[in-house]
């Protein structure tokens, strides 16, 4: 299934000066509305179908302007007893009202399948992916999801198709960041009305501590259990082959032997750097808690990037030595959630 993908855009790019107060008032009103809808409709469990009772609709700013214009037209028609002007103005009025129903229907019955939030380092935007499905027999257009300043739009979601909307949330502190209420809206077809719904999930973005700190990593120590096995480049000695284990880097795999039909094996080297690094919270005395966690995160990221094996020791937990994306995530998660 090919997923039409919409790029995420940031609103701040248009340098339109607005009154800060006005935008603050708007933000406050929006969050009030979100809270109100949360109390009203409760927490959402995926998959969510957008039902009528959670779907709201109001004239957009363009719609208000259109309304004012329409009023002028009707007044002109009435004042000059001009039947043609009245006919045209009444047509436009009906047109807008039918458009309102089109707008409402464009969201009604839409299915929200899932929401995935990727972990992010504090300070970097967290990426949230929303999966939508249109199982109705009509095409839907112009569906926008928004969190704060981040929004993404699906141009067309054909009947029977699924689509993906990618949003970002700003992260400031490590820990679990609750995904704010997501506003899913449409102005289709004429932009005169906006229909929207609030999506309240208990999903969280795991925010790692910022990888920061200039201290040199601790000296590598020999590990009792597995010996001095680690990957390194350069002039390390080749020590032998061992069976493939989860977490091994594809670069270490002996592809040539695999191509000859032999089982998957990994080349091992022994060298000066082929020892396990142990990152110990306690060893960083003299720094504050957050600074220690940031420094540890820095070391974890660097060690993983160099392909070294590493272990993490925190006062509350010990993560044994290892390597690879899963290991890295376990370490960073422990740092993120350290209390």
């Amino acid at each position, binding site marked *: 299934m090919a997923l039409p993908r*919409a790029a995420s855009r940031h609103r701040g790019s*248009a340098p339109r000066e607005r009154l800060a107060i006005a935008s603050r008032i708007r933000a406050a009103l929006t969050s009030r509305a979100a809270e109100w809808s949360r109390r009203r409709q409760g927490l959402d469990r995926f998959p969510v179908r957008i*039902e*009528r009772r959670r779907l709201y609709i109001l004239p957009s700013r*363009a719609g208000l*302007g*259109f309304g004012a*214009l329409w009023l*002028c*037209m009707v007044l*002109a*028609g*009435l*004042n*000059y*007893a*001009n*039947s*043609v*002007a*009245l*006919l*045209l*103005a*009444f*047509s*436009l*009025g*009906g*047109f807008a*009202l*039918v*458009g309102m*129903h*089109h707008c*409402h*229907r464009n969201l*009604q*019955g839409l299915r929200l399948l899932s929401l995935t939030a990727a972990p992010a380092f504090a300070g970097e935007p967290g990426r949230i992916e929303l999966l939508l499905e249109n*199982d*109705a*027999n*009509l095409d839907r*257009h*112009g569906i926008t999801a928004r969190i704060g300043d981040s929004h993404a*739009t*699906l*141009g*067309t979601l054909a*009947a*029977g198709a699924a689509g993906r909307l990618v949003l970002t949330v700003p992260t400031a502190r490590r820990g679990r960041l609750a995904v704010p209420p997501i506003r899913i809206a449409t*102005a*289709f*077809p*004429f*932009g*005169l009305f906006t229909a929207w719904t609030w999506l309240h999930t208990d999903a969280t973005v795991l925010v790692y501590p910022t990888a920061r700190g200039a201290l040199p990593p601790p000296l590598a120590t020999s590990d009792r259990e597995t010996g001095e096995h680690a990957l390194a480049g350069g002039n390390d000695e080749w020590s032998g082959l061992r069976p493939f284990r989860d977490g091994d880097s594809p670069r270490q795999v002996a592809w040539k032997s695999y191509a000859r039909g032999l089982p998957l094996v990994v080349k091992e080297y022994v060298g000066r750097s082929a020892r396990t690094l142990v990152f110990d919270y306690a060893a960083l005395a003299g720094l504050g808690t957050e600074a220690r966690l940031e420094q540890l995160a820095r070391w974890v990221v660097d060690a993983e990037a160099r392909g070294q094996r590493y272990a993490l020791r925190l006062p509350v937990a010990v993560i044994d030595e290892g390597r690879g994306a899963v290991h890295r995530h376990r370490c960073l998660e422990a740092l993120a959630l350290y209390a």
Partner: protein
Amino acid sequence: MRERWREAWPERERALRWVIAAFSAAVALHADRLPPWCLAAIAAIVLWRLFAAVASLALPRRLIRLGLGGSLLLAVVVQFSSLSGLAAGSALLAAMGAVKLLETRGRRDHYIVLGVSLFLMIAATLDRQGLARIGLYAAHLWLCCAALAIVGTPDARLPARTAFGLAGRTLAYALPLTVLLFLFFPRVQGQIWSLPAGNAAVTGLGDEMSPGSISQLSESEEPAFRVTFEGAPPPSTSLYWRGPVLHQFDGYTWRRELGRVYRSARLEYEGPEYRYRITLEPHRQRWWFALDLPVPPQQPGVFFTFDYQLVSAEPVSQAVSYELVSHIRYRSGDEASLLARRIDLQLPTGRNRRTLEWAQRERAAAGSDAAFVRRVLEFFRDGGFVYSLTPPLLDLDSVDDFLFRTRSGFCGHYASALATLMRAAGIPARVVTGYHGGEWNPIGQYLIVRQSEAHAWVEIWIDGRGWSRVDPTAVVAPDRLQRAALDRIAGAEGAADPLIAELDTLARIALTWDAINTWWKIRVLDFDLGSQLKLLRGLGFERPALRQLGWLVAGGLAAWLLVIALRFGRAPRAARGDALARGYRSLCARLAAAGIARAPQEGPLAYAARLARERPDLAARVLPVLERYALVRFGPRASDAQTRAVARELRSLRP
């Protein structure tokens, strides 16, 4: 070429293309009214904007735009010497919309230009509502609505077809509401405010008459007004349509009396009454025409003057329609007031001396007023007078010149001469201008009165009878009043006119078109509060009132909203899969009824294998179909024909 244009056009400016199309169409609606420089300026700006979009040029700076807007504003002020008139306002709106195009960046600007386009359309309807233009307005409305769809949902990249389809369907759903509101939305009586009307010259009767200055009477076939009678129309010789009454004469020109008013005696109407409705073309003057002589109408904004004219408070700047009652016979009192005598006996001193002498001599010889009138009419009939639409010009003593030298003229000459003679003989006389006759439209059952039927006659005061009509033209050229063909040859403007007379089908088409237009005018354009109340009465309301209109609008609106909500408010039906899936599902259902249901985890081939084991009786027919289904569904892409064939098989197979 088209492809190249597509390529040249940046995709992000797609909405702009539609906005420009809608705006250009709006300006085109005003093309006949905007001054040429204004059209040229707008066209140049639009081309500039198009070029900037194609070539990705920067838009002009703020200062340039302000300068451009300012100079266009100045040009409009210079051209129209005001900004409040309809033509000036439209020109200004169009020019400012064009300047706005030069700063269209975002959606907001697009909406603004679309709003300008819609408002230009309304401005165009204010003074031009002919049936022929309705199609243009409707097409423009459709275009604007489609452009709204493109601008409103830019990410969807709706194709033009979809946008037009969407807008068209939406407008179609709005149609019942449009009709409902049109019929029942309470109309306002009278204007709350008014735009000064333009001073464009419109053919018609002026408020003065100088027969001597006209050497060729234009015979315009433009309609002046149309009349629908309730019941039988009066005899055609009595069709005098009364207009401005002229009292003041300086020897050359007749003018209306301004300022002085004399009290007229009570009117006594005699004979049958005629009820009729007149639909008057705009003539930018304040008078209304009526069959001589109307009963004063009880209508606000219209006055019945001392000399029996109908004068409206506002100039007739768009077609108006009114109902009147007239009697063709009446008496207007026994004795003329002193002021009336002074006004209607007034003659310029030292002018038209021969006429004055002749009149006094003949009056003395005749012995009575009535005999004198007869004498004058005989003089006109037997004195070698000729009715001509191309009379020679007259000198300043116009009546002398006409009576004793040229003896050739049209109704205005005769009326002027007769009134002068009467006044010279001491009989109060005034000139009445208007129309006479009319062409009966058998298709629409109404009378068309054209500009070529403009007429002038004289009213004289006869003690004991009051004001009486004397029409000297009837004596000189009785044919003229019977609408002889002769009338329309000389100086006729439309070369097509004799053709119409000859070619029956063409005449029929012309009359039919006129009839449709008249229906449109009376039924649609002149639909007002009175018509609404009449409609209510027709619907069975005993005492029609505004409140009932309100209830009808509210009820109708609610009903329409309910229908629309039922149509669009329900959640869209979930798709039930394609034909193939439906066919497969139905076959599985039939097989389940036959006792061997498909397990939820079974694919078609596994199911088929189990069928072959458990129900060999069915397998022979069902198996190949299931296999073909699996091939079409999961195999390499099958053609549509193959898919349809398998779907049909699935549907029709009865185990």
